[in-house]
């Protein structure tokens, strides 16, 4: 691709997304300095590989794909964490044991909409697998549709749907334990209302 065309596509369709890509990577790696470095690398990669991008399509989704791959393939390999990962498959499959799902069918947390859960959400998200965290961030923070995520991440639509369902359930499970200790849970079914 000619240099002027490369620059034109980059400036018109890519550059404006640098803030949101930085935010996405911040939520993936958890610190600003690394997120800034990874954002730079994402845009360098986008510039170099711009031939692979179809102009006029979803530049943001394409950048998220590059950013996610960069995070998992490069950054994660260098800083392999020793933390225990929450296997949301396990959390999901355990939903029927000890009636854990029953607690979620009517789960309302008093006052939580106006309370600061940010630390707990970050902790709970950090326990998701990297790929699944990327998907849940795209779906729930940046309003990507399931179809857009499937296309961007090269996954089957049903895989995206089931991943989102499991990851949300795993997040809620973590948050409900914290909320129950901190705020109390209003569960009208358990109260017989």
């Amino acid at each position, binding site marked *: 691709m000619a240099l002027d065309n490369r620059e034109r596509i980059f400036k018109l369709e890519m550059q404006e997304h640098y803030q949101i890509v930085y935010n996405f990577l911040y939520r993936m790696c958890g610190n600003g300095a690394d997120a800034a470095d990874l954002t730079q690398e994402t845009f360098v990669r986008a510039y170099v590989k711009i031939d692979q991008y179809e102009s006029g399509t979803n530049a943001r989704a394409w950048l998220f794909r590059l950013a996610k791959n960069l995070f998992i393939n490069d950054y994660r390999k260098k800083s392999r964490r020793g933390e225990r990962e929450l296997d949301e498959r396990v959390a999901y499959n355990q939903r029927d044991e000890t009636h854990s799902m029953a607690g979620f069918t009517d789960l309302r947390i008093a006052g939580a*909409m106006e309370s*600061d859960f940010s630390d707990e959400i970050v902790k709970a998200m950090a326990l998701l697998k990297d790929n699944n965290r990327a998907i849940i961030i795209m779906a729930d923070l940046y309003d990507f549709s399931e179809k857009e995520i499937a296309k961007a991440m090269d996954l089957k639509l049903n895989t995206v749907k089931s991943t989102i369902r499991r990851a949300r359930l795993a997040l809620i499970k973590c948050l409900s334990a914290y909320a129950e200790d901190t705020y*109390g849970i209003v569960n009208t079914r358990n109260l*017989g209302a």
Partner: protein
Amino acid sequence: MSFSNSRKSNQNRNHQLPEVADRQPAGPTGECLDLSIDPNTEEIKNLDAYQVFLKRNLKPLAAPVDLLANIQARLAEIDAQKA
């Protein structure tokens, strides 16, 4: 004897209701967060409320002020190498 136990049992049952009600959380009384899951579909019943809750807690962060300039500098280096 049987009647007495039954009566006692009824008394206990009747007496328990307000105690259970008293166990409702005495904490924050603001807007409730509904994270209920539909047992049939296993989806969040109130997806909008859940997403608003996440977005309120994970607000957008400002990128470093020099980030865009740094990106552009890197791209200029690439162009210079190709030229």
